[in-house]
């Protein structure tokens, strides 16, 4: 018998395999993060990474897969966060408030996304981007003006369900003290982290399924050649509107999750353009149109934001006797160094880390 070249499965490059292994490693590290890195800062970082992976991946479905440039992604994130925050504050800390807040956030996101989409996805990409920018600005102004509801610039603090309280003992021993596993208290904080982890994991899986199913190929086709996609029978506007709504809902849910974790929602944590810029940087550094890129980008950027300063501080101290080094490495200059690192990354990984790595080992 002769072997026909297998049509079903193209060969994977070692680069693509490396990327997947990296992502698996991240998933494992995040899963055990509370046990591996036992300080309050680390768990904050880990939770933020989880949320941003989802947020960036949902943005990648838009920009990387479909080729839609939007600057309103934080707006949808904010709808979910404020939805949960307002519900939790007015209804008290219960799951009903969370469910209601999350649903309201999703509904508002869908309505706004559908309206923007149907009204303007037919226009040129640049106009669409402008419209999303305008919408996001309007929402930001509204959030700061309607301070009775949104808390204005101060934001809202609230309580979440009791299981998520740090003082809540999930497991108690015979003396009524909270049980420790490997030195970690099995308390509400841990429960809250695993709530974040599990919901983000689930959302990421849904997105993976989406891009791997027939509609995922249609989205890529629209990105590649909109006119031909239309010519073979796909209603491009409908698909675009759908994916815009889908990614808005995922962003909104990510916002709800983050609001539950932080127990605080304000313009800085849920609406600001700084978050939008972070998302853009993460998707560019990680690699567009790969899903895995979102993971890598989110991890790198969040880590840099939290730890680069410290790292530079200790480097400056260690090099205190080297002329100039302490000045150059002064912790206050961390943003400057972050900028340099970005430029180097973008220069060396033009398709983002995941995209460029995946091409390694390709036969072409």
């Amino acid at each position, binding site marked *: 018998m002769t072997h026909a*070249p297998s049509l079903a499965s*193209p060969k994977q490059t070692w680069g693509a395999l490396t990327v997947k292994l990296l992502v698996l490693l991240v998933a494992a590290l995040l899963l055990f993060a509370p046990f591996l890195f036992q300080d309050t800062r680390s768990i904050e970082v880990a939770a933020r990474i989880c949320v941003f992976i989802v947020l960036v991946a949902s943005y990648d479905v838009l920009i990387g897969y479909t080729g839609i440039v939007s600057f309103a992604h934080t707006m949808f994130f904010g709808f979910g966060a404020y939805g949960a925050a307002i519900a939790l504050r007015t209804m008290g800390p219960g799951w009903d408030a969370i469910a209601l807040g999350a649903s309201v956030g999703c509904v508002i996101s869908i309505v706004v996304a559908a309206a923007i989409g149907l009204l303007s996805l037919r226009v040129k990409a640049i106009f669409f981007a402008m419209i999303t920018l305008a919408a996001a600005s309007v929402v930001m102004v509204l959030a700061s003006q309607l301070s009775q509801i949104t808390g204005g610039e101060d934001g809202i603090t609230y309580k979440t369900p009791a299981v998520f309280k740090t003082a809540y003992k999930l497991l108690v021993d015979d003396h009524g003290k909270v049980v420790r596993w490997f030195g970690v208290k099995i308390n509400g904080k841990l429960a809250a982290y695993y709530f974040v982890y599990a919901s983000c994991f689930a959302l990421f899986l849904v997105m993976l399924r989406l891009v791997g199913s027939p509609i995922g190929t249609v989205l890529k086709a629209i990105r590649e050649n909109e006119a031909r996609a*239309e*010519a073979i029978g796909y209603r491009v506007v409908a698909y675009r509107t759908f994916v815009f709504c889908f990614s808005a809902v995922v962003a909104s849910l990510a916002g709800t999750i983050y609001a539950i974790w932080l127990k605080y929602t304000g313009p800085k944590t849920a609406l600001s353009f700084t978050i939008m810029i972070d998302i853009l940087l993460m998707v560019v550094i990680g690699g567009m149109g790969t899903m895995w890129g979102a993971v890598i980008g989110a991890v790198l950027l969040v880590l840099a934001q939290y730890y680069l300063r410290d790292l530079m501080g200790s480097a400056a101290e260690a090099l205190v006797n080297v002329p100039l080094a302490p000045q150059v490495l002064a912790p206050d200059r961390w943003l400057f160094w972050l900028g340099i690192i970005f430029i180097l990354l973008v220069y060396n990984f033009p398709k983002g880390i995941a995209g460029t790595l995946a091409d390694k080992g390709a036969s072409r």
Partner: protein
Amino acid sequence: MTEPSLITQDLTIRFGGHVAVDAVSCAFRPGELTVIVGPNGAGKTTYFNLISGQLRATQGKVMKGALDLTQMAPSRRAQHGIGRAFQLTNLFPKLTVLENIRLAVQARSGQGWRFLTPVHRLTGLQADAEGYLAKTRLESVAHLPAAALSHGDQRKLEVALLMAMEPDIYMFDEPTAGMSLDHAPDVLELIAALKQDRSKTILLVEHKMDVVRALADRIIVLHNGALLADGPPQEVMDSDIVRDVYLGKSPAAPSRASQEVA
């Protein structure tokens, strides 16, 4: 005679003052292969664009049987069985050949909206796509991105997409243009095989006279956007006007770059 499957009535489009397609009324029937000829810039591609919906008519109608397509978007026309291959290769460059073809199969089978089933589990879809891959002899490049193919293979893929749409109306716009001699027969064989299926209506824009002779059941001639002649191949090719506007001049005339919606 069978009922016409595709009718254009008084079909016209103006670009500013320029009339690119000028009141073309014509009916096409299943089982009939019509070759459309005319010099560069005659309006052949524009006529196709009006039928498949890339351009909207200034005046006139496009009917598929009793169904009025004139105001429909290209995607709806495709869903109603209008299929089109483009003169300028018009593919999904970064997607693989197999993915390109699968997209066309999937559009027809209405599975484009499925969003929780991994592609590889839809074996029917995959097998279907592989069928067209084999028909167009593109198996060896199945997993290359379309952009990496040779020009000839890209032209074949262009035709494969049309085949995979399984339309009722097939429109080929110079399918063998720029193809090497060893590739062209593959495509012409495919078109000849399509002709055997008497339920299909085929429109073909082609300059090569030997191809026209071999395949045409009927020839229509466009010139300056207007329908100049329409009839059996021999009759049309022998007529004087056609000689003047086309057969006489075309090979020598400097070819104008065609601006088409691609």
